């Protein structure tokens, strides 16, 4: 398989989601594509089925300058700051959607292996190291293709995270923080010192091996960016979309 690679920078949440969707929409023209990127300013993305107001302290996020966006994929709320995100766009794979999570998570598992960590798939959509979650992933299938995006944690800061994310009861905020400390880990916590730029290469290499792909970089047609911008402005930056549930 030929796999187009986009080594991207850190962008606003609305652009990130618009660009991922535009890549998926244009799959038949651009072919299988892997993008590695980050978020600036920091952001919270919520799953398609979640309620923004239930998941996020919206006024606190505004105060801190944290962007809020709804994904087109399911799953939970993610705080995007100390991590790398990937998106991979492919023609639909055969078989059950939920089974294909496992195949694509192999990209992240391979990257972790190259960094000296033994990782494995856990639950529906997680990758774990030493029994603790280090990566979450979510997939959708539309426009004749599939999009899976996911994150790999470089650091984890539960106190900062729960300053923005809501827990169901204020009294159990401390419990939520200690639970994340027990259940979630990061590259730093596992003794791996790697920065965002270096990590991009490991993730790309991990997917290259998982898909037995030949990698290439090429410029994208302007219309891909134009459509991403349209989605950024008319969909992902809108209250209508982000607060629709």
């Amino acid at each position, binding site marked *: 398989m030929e796999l187009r690679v986009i080594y991207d920078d850190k962008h606003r949440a609305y652009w990130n989601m618009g660009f991922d969707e535009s890549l998926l929409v244009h799959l038949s023209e651009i072919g299988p594509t892997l993008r590695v990127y980050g978020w600036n300013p920091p952001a919270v993305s919520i*799953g*398609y*089925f*979640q*309620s923004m*107001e*239930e998941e996020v302290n919206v006024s606190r996020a505004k105060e801190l300058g944290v962007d809020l966006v709804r994904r*087109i*994929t*399911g*799953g*939970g*709320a993610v705080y995007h700051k100390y991590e790398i995100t990937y998106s991979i766009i492919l023609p639909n794979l055969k078989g*059950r*959607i*939920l089974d294909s999570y496992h195949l694509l998570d192999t990209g992240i598992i391979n990257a972790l292996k190259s960094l000296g960590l033994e990782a494995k798939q856990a*639950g*529906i*959509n997680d990758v774990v190291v030493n029994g603790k979650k280090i990566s979450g992933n*979510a997939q*959708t*299938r*539309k426009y004749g293709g599939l999009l899976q995006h996911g994150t790999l944690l470089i650091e984890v800061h539960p106190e900062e995270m729960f300053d923005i994310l*809501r827990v169901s009861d204020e009294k159990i905020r401390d419990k939520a923080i200690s639970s994340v400390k027990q259940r979630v880990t990061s590259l730093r916590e596992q003794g791996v010192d790697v920065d965002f730029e270096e990590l991009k290469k490991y993730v790309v290499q991990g997917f290259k091996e998982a898909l037995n792909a030949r990698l290439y970089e090429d410029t994208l047609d302007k219309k891909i960016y134009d459509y991403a911008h349209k989605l950024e402005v008319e969909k992902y930056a809108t209250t209508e979309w982000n607060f629709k*549930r």
Partner: protein
Amino acid sequence: MPQPSGISRGKYALKDGKLVVVDATFDGDIIKNIRITGDFFLHPEERIEYIEDRLKGIPIKDVKSVIRDAMKNTEYAGISPESLEIAIREAWKRRL
């Protein structure tokens, strides 16, 4: 969060931590309005709006069959026809 007057909430938490939350209003045993939220997966995603629309205006006794029909040809994880039905029945029991 406190719910606006008239809305009752039912929840179903799966062992893996995924949560299904139902916020609904009822008129007797008829579902007037319903919103289903959570960190689950459902493919295709937009089917959730169809499921909600199908549930509006039906009596609570028909919930099981309507959910089963509306969730046909979907793939899901962290939610199921059974867990959704339980969450709706819990919301109904808690109605004001």
